């Protein structure tokens, strides 16, 4: 199991190393630089120790020879200073708040929030710290969980609250907070055979209405498209700490394949912390390319962008295994994609009565 030490001094020291790199270059009479791993699919490789994909050895240097990258370095320095101040004052801020605070940074001010988000990620990558260490929160909230799992959550008053995600919640389920580390969330107990991640809210609600979680002893988690870090992190913790299998139920299109890769193998953007976020044992339930044919699902033609994405996936190391190559090639061949909810073609109960039991049966989960 992964564990993380939250050590403010270590965080500060790592951040200072970034600053030192710039300072030392100036002293040597060179343009200041910031060196960071290349963050593209060409620089991710399989890490045998963790069973996930992580950044490789390729480094890129951001040096102050153009105005844009020089400004970026200056912003990084302001962010470092800001983080140190927060650590010392015991405060935290959202990434959006930091964007607004940067208004007073003069030349180092951000021109868009995207810039501040990317820079926070850059610093994570360089320092191998987490943004939680930096006291920076994302704006995005986590997802919803329904099922017979019990958690302890530290509430605003500093008290631990015991919550069962079937009995203590309404129809919208248990809302996953942005921080799901052990200082905030404890996994207490469960009575489930597996955890099912679902891409769309419509399908999530369909399964709840049909009582699927109770009928099949499982917990359901709504991904809301590309899942937030906390969503991926809590799935990983349940998988590791409770040893429950994770199955992923998505649309059948190239973008869903990417969502699955980020859950199971690690996302390219966050490959520096794949070992915290990825669940290597997760399995893809559907919609698969052969489902589209086997169940004769209503489908749409692949768009030009879809085809580009599929071709990119063919050379993505995360999809290098035979099963995925097959699925991708088959989708390219039939030129079709299908949504989860296209299963409704056979009635509202088809998904819970027929499709899911059949697929779970193939996986040996029912």
């Amino acid at each position, binding site marked *: 199991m992964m564990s993380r030490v939250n050590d403010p001094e270590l965080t500060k020291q790592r951040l*200072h190393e970034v*600053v*030192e790199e*710039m*300072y030392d*270059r*100036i*002293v*040597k*009479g*060179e*343009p*200041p630089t910031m060196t960071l791993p290349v963050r593209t699919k060409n620089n991710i490789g399989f890490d045998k120790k963790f069973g996930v994909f992580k950044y490789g050895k390729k480094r890129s240097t951001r040096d*102050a*020879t*153009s*105005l844009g990258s*020089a*400004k970026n*370095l*200056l912003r990084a*320095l*302001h962010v*470092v*200073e800001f983080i*140190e101040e927060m650590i010392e004052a015991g405060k935290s801020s959202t990434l959006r708040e930091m964007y607004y605070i940067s208004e007073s940074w*003069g*030349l*180092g001010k951000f021109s868009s929030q995207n810039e501040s988000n990317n820079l926070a990620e850059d610093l994570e990558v360089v320092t191998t710290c987490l943004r939680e260490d930096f006291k920076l929160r994302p704006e995005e909230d986590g997802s919803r969980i329904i099922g017979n799992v019990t958690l302890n959550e530290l509430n605003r008053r500093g008290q631990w609250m015991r919550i069962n995600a079937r009995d203590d919640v309404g129809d919208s389920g248990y809302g996953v907070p942005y921080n799901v580390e052990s200082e905030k969330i404890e996994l207490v107990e469960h009575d489930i055979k597996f955890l099912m991640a679902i891409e769309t809210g419509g399908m999530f609600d369909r399964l709840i209405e049909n009582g699927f979680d109770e009928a099949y002893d499982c917990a359901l988690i709504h991904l809301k498209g590309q899942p937030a870090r906390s969503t991926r992190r809590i799935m990983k913790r349940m998988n590791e700490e409770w040893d429950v299998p994770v199955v992923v139920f998505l649309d059948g299109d190239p973008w869903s394949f990417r969502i699955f890769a980020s859950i199971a193998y690690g996302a390219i953007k966050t490959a520096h912390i794949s070992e915290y976020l990825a669940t290597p044992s997760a399995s893809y339930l559907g919609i698969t390319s052969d489902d589209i044919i086997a169940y004769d699902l209503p489908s749409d033609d692949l768009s030009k962008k879809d085809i580009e994405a599929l071709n990119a996936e063919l050379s993505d190391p995360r999809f290098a295994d035979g099963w995925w190559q097959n699925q991708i090639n088959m989708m390219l061949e039939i030129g079709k994609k299908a949504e989860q909810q296209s299963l409704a073609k056979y009635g509202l109960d088809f998904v819970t009565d027929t499709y899911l039991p059949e697929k779970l049966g193939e996986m040996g989960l029912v």
Partner: protein
Amino acid sequence: MAGIADKMASNQKQIAISEFFEKNKHFLGFDTLQRSIITAVKEGVDNALDACEEARILPDIRVKINKIDSKKDIIELITEDNGPGIPQKSIEKVFGQLLFGSRFHAIRQSRGQQGIGITGVVMYSQLTTGKPTHILSKVASDATAVSVNIGLDTRKNKAIKSDQDRIIWENDDHTFKEHGVRVTSRMKAKYQRGRQSVFQYLRMTSIVNPHADIIFTDPDGEVHHWPRVTERLPGKVDAIKPHPHGIELGQLQRMCKESKDSRMTVFLRSNFSGVSMRAAKELCEASELAVTAKPKSLKPDQIRALLESFQGERMINNKAIKLLSPPTNCLSPIEEMLIKKGLSKTIDSKFIATMTRAPNVSHGNPFQVEVGLIFGEGMAADKPVEILRFANRVPLMYQQGGCLLTKAVESVDWRQYGLDQPGGRGVPKGPAAVLVHLASTNVQFTSEAKEALSDNEIVFEETRKAMLEMGRGLRKHLEKKKKMAKTREKFELINDILPAIAAKSASILNRPVPALAGSITKIMSAVICEEETVWNTETKLTDVEIILFNYTSRARSYSLLVNWPEKEGAEITANERGGRKEAMGIWAWKIETLDPGEQARVTYSLSGLEKGDWNETEVFFRGNQDVIGATKLDEKMLEEIRRQEEILGDSEIPAGEEEMNGFEPGVVEGQPGQTTLFGGEQ
């Protein structure tokens, strides 16, 4: 020749003139209510400008349109000038007779080649409202002005005067008007806005007449003012004799018939331009005429033979007879500096390129093409560029598509010069306006409407060449702008961002702020030139500052060169570094050693210019290391400038004395690379 006008006028007397007018109103410019008002303004303003130019007066022109009866579309038009005025005895002739005017038979560039003149306005007013036109005219030598109503007896082509009086003419501020004319007419017409409007006509007129001050009060009472931007009047143009290449049979017959010359050689030498003594003899020989023949007694066959010799159809030793090209001092180009001023007066924008080609000749008619291009933020970026067409300083507002000048604009691939142009043909798109001016003694139109120039290969090529040259100017400007933006970024980097990085990193690490010199050299790793040309409102001089920074690790040495408007009469002052004149309009300084991290500064002022005349100085350099912000000197360009300079120096000899080589009938090749006014090559 003085009799031609009278003769033509008397020929036309036979038909009722009102009938003639009614039948031909489309080409007289009175075919629609919208166009009639533009034509009326045009006749008045053209007259005023021509009169002022002849009398060497800086024109103040006032145009006012009042609504009289909106339902019946009756308006009142008042045009007023400060010209020399018209003597009382000439008023009837000027306003009451078709085809009167000194310019009709003179061969020179004049505005009034178009339309039938102000008489048309008098006639149109009378036909549509029954009202006479009121004239107020004062000449400087009279104490009072003449006030008179002019109507027309359309049967006799004669004016009918009424209510004639002499009055004291006061200006609005109660001073006495010294001289000028005011014309007030009532007519049926419709005022409109847009591309074809009185407003646009006056705006365009003000562009090509930067010496005029024009105020227009529209029917809604809104006042538009186009101020005078130069005190310089257009050059005085001389009338020239016809050139053999431009003559037609009828004209030649008439000339022979009216000639009192005793022999052919005298006739040819004194009535035509471009005929030397040798050429006169050769023309006679080729036409099988005795040099002593009396022109008046030539037979039709002989006249035809003479014409054939003129046109190169009859030759001597298989060669057409060499003629001199006609003199070009009969042309009055606007000239580049004034085009700039005219354009920037009406369009608010930063960059203007202009190009005045040297005069050329087509079919015996001297002509000259001028173009201007204004580019920048003030204009719509996604619309076709505005094309401002002019012939002899008169705006052409209709039939844009069928005009030679438009075709020349369309024939250029503007994409390579930084404008949008789908398919590389047609009117380009972008935030720009293009001005094209043809000055010529004989402007050829596609039709009597006189709104579009007819095709002429030589004029087309000249116009196209001018466009290409101007396009290169635009591209250079855009490239420079891009480079300057990059340079500015680099300066921001080393002046602001880098010190901030040093200070911030030092404060986070709690260490001393490091020195930056080394990093700066590595970041810039270039020699950079900054140029600033600004108008100094206090000294009324154009101040130029050039700074050369050496951000490389080695000492450098350069020659810096700049362009400056020497031809336009500017002078360099307060030039502390001295330097020397390299060529016409090019000054040079030597920068001996520029150590790493050092900068050299050149400052000087230009006198003899007005605000807006000179906004950008081009900097060139000689030296090994490239300089950002300056152009490596093209020695060929310098040679070309020097060559032009020599030619200019030689052109003290009156134009027209040089024999032309390689002359083909009807085609005169311009010298390549003409870049100056009156290059004198011909």
